[in-house]
């Protein structure tokens, strides 16, 4: 699903991602860990093709991201469901409209949008709050809306960048469990970036650890690497 080969990304003199290589199979759930500034977000932005690598090769869903042209990006991104730490919800749209967004931009018929949004909101447990606006929801609920938006288009890959970063410990665990449950139910590949050791250790899943842009650990059934 995702394959990186000696991937490097620099911002001026700063090497954010430094010669990283890994491969993630379809249907895997992978934790991407490391302290702040280790390169997790940059790596996710490279996968989402918000950034281009300076050197190396990154293939997502069989597509070399360096070769993608601007006009190819919408179709490419429709295969990915992104979840962000700051939710990135549209404040002037209600929950229903926020979740429907990925389908609306694809020109999906209203009836199909209706059933898909209903299903996504059922899965995240927010079916009763469809008319509410983001300003009326708690942090945990906002992240659930963001997750519903990420899964509504049935993506092949979910990229969650510190989805629990703004949440209290209990809600953070709930969100991580929700992502794991959705992964089990939908069989979607999930890459979740986090520096929350408790959450990583809650599951026994593959852990890729970055430190100063370098991949220092890739364990199939790992725990949080405290050394990082």
């Amino acid at each position, binding site marked *: 699903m995702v394959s990186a080969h000696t991937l490097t990304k620099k911002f001026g003199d700063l090497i954010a991602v430094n010669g990283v290589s890994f491969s993630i199979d379809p249907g895997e759930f992978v934790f991407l860990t490391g302290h702040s500034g280790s390169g997790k977000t940059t790596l996710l932005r490279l996968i*989402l093709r*918000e950034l281009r690598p300076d050197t190396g090769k990154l293939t997502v869903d069989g597509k070399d991201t360096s070769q993608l042209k*601007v*006009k190819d*990006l*919408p*179709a*490419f*991104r*429709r295969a990915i469901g*992104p979840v962000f730490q700051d939710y*990135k*919800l*549209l404040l002037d749209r209600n929950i229903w409209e926020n979740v429907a*967004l*990925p389908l*609306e*931009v*694809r020109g999906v018929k209203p009836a199909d949008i209706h059933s898909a949004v209903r299903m996504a909101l059922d899965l995240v447990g927010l079916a009763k709050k469809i008319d509410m606006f983001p300003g009326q929801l708690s942090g945990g609920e906002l992240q659930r809306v963001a997750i519903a*938006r990420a899964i509504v*288009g049935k993506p092949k890959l979910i990229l969650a960048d510190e989805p629990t970063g703004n949440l209290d410990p209990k809600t953070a665990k709930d969100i991580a469990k929700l992502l794991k449950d959705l992964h089990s139910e939908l069989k979607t590949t999930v890459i979740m970036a986090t520096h929350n050791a408790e959450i990583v250790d809650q599951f026994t899943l593959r852990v890729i650890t970055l430190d100063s842009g370098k991949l220092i650990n890739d364990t199939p059934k790992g725990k949080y690497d405290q050394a990082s």
Partner: protein
Amino acid sequence: MTKHLKTALNRIRRSPYQAIAAISIMTMTLFLAGALFLLSAGSQAVLNYFETRPQINAFFKVDYVPPQSEIDRIHSELDATGLVKSFHFVSKDEALTIYKDLNKSDPLLLDAVTASMLPASVEVSAYQPNDLSVLADKLKTEPNIDDVRYAQDILGALTKWTNSVRVVGLTLVGTNILITFLIILLIIGVKVAGRREEIVVLQLVGATRSYISAPFIYEGVLYGLLGGFIAWGIMYLILLYSMPFLVTFLAGIPILPPPILFMLEVLGGEMLLGALVGGMGGLMATKRYLKT
């Protein structure tokens, strides 16, 4: 399309002052464009009117009645130049009829004049206004022709005026369109900047450039359509209000009132121009945010 239009209308409603500014500048520019177009079209119509009228009137001596052979000779000599569009002989009796028709409202003038007092004449029109002087010079050499009058001076002045209106008009309108485009670009640019977070989200969930740009382009188009309509309305009202004065000023030149169809075409042109300027402004405003 309906969805994007609704979005554009919502955005206009939510920022009324920006919308008023955009529509006002659009109205001003399109009013100027429309007014100058009407002035130019009117001048052209007056010019065409003069060009299609018999432009040379050559009057025989008052006490002279030209024989048919002389009229035919003059006709054939003028025809030989290849410059004549039409040739018409006006006899003394015909001249009296024309005189009576022109002065039918004044019986005193009618009683005092007889056919013998009026000169016979020939009316000659040319294909090109510039050829009038050649024909006039030829007629002046005729011994029995007393006076030759033609509208060369009027046509020359009118042609100059029409050309000036076009040049000044195009320059003024071009400059104003550029300024309007920049203001629309600025107004919509501010809105785009205010929605850059939304644009980023839309891009990340797979929206195409056209999907993101469409509401902003529609917004610009709506400003243009409204501005065009208002400008046309103001212009038409001013034209209708000035009609009595203009009809008197143009002294029988039948170009007023302008046909409704023509005015509707002007409306279409104004709205199209406005929509193009506004739409381009909207497109350019979003372009810089859609590079990645």
